[in-house]
């Protein structure tokens, strides 16, 4: 029997895996624009985790910062400095 509690924790587990995917791709990706967008995917997953962990204040401050302001700042930087990460680490 699937209880409400197990269902909620299942959503949390799925979000954790999605954020792990987003982080890995954001770090590995050579194209910095794609890296910023993957980091936005990870931020969305984190915002949902904050929501389920009952922190609406954090969601209200984290979503504007991590989805609304932060990609813009990094895209400004990328537009001015160049799009590619170095060729080999």
């Amino acid at each position: 029997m699937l209880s409400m509690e197990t269902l909620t924790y299942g959503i949390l587990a799925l979000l954790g895996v999605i954020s792990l995917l987003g982080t890995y791709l954001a770090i590995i990706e050579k194209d910095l624009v794609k890296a910023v967008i993957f980091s936005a995917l990870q931020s969305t997953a984190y915002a949902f985790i904050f929501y389920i962990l009952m922190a609406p204040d954090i969601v209200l401050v984290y979503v504007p910062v991590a989805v609304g302001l932060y990609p813009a700042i990094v895209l400004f930087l990328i537009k001015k400095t160049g799009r590619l990460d170095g060729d080999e680490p």
Partner: protein
Amino acid sequence: MKGWKHVIAITSLVVSTSVLALATAIGGLGYILPTPGVRDLAYWYLVTVLSPSNKLFTAMSPEAVTSIVWDYRGLDTLFETSVFFLAIIGSIALMRGIKIVPERLRNYSSGMSPIVKTVTRITAGMIIAVAASIALHGHLTPGGGFQGGATAAVAPLLLMVVFSIYFIIKSGITEERMLALRTAGLVGIVFTAFSACIIAASLGTQAYVFQNQPKSTAAVGLPASIMGSLTSGTLIFFNLFEFFAVAAGFTIVFLLLSIPENIVKQALRGVESEH
């Protein structure tokens, strides 16, 4: 070949996560699930945050997070606000001497398509309204000064991206005005923090800095409700001033960041030739 490497790396990460979780579930790694209880400190915060029967220790606000930020741990937040202040000042100092000359403010016809411009014009007003409601209701519903300020800072950024920086500066959002607004917000925070002390000094009694409500050892404090509506003492003023400080601070940074690179290069060359 390259793709396979990444698939293997992702799979190993997910599998190791699952194995660790399974080991925890079977009982090898301790109990990770939070217990149904809560710590003593958190219990006291929750019990005293709004209790009209316990006038001596209450913060008189239904919102526990905002009252912890500005009442229980107010000095902490004051110093974090000063860190914020210093980071913005550092950014401004790195861009000193660079600004858009007013003669260059031509009627820039670039920007995005008319559909996006119209929608953004509507949306910018909505953003400011949502931000103001988040900040001013911060002591009753989720929200507060930091949240409202971060929300409001997106509106000028969006206008800057959709129209252009020339449009922003023409419509009156200049760096000097934002700096003045932010300084007004910071002065307001400091003044609100010392307001109880000032009132007490004029009355000849004593009071605490960052005092939200009247306490037993110091009789003076701000009222919990004004004309029947709950304002929670200093919290509403702190939220208002922090809203101005955060929104204006981020707007200055974006104004500096979005100056086109050729203007910056000209300015740098000018500075070099002066020396």
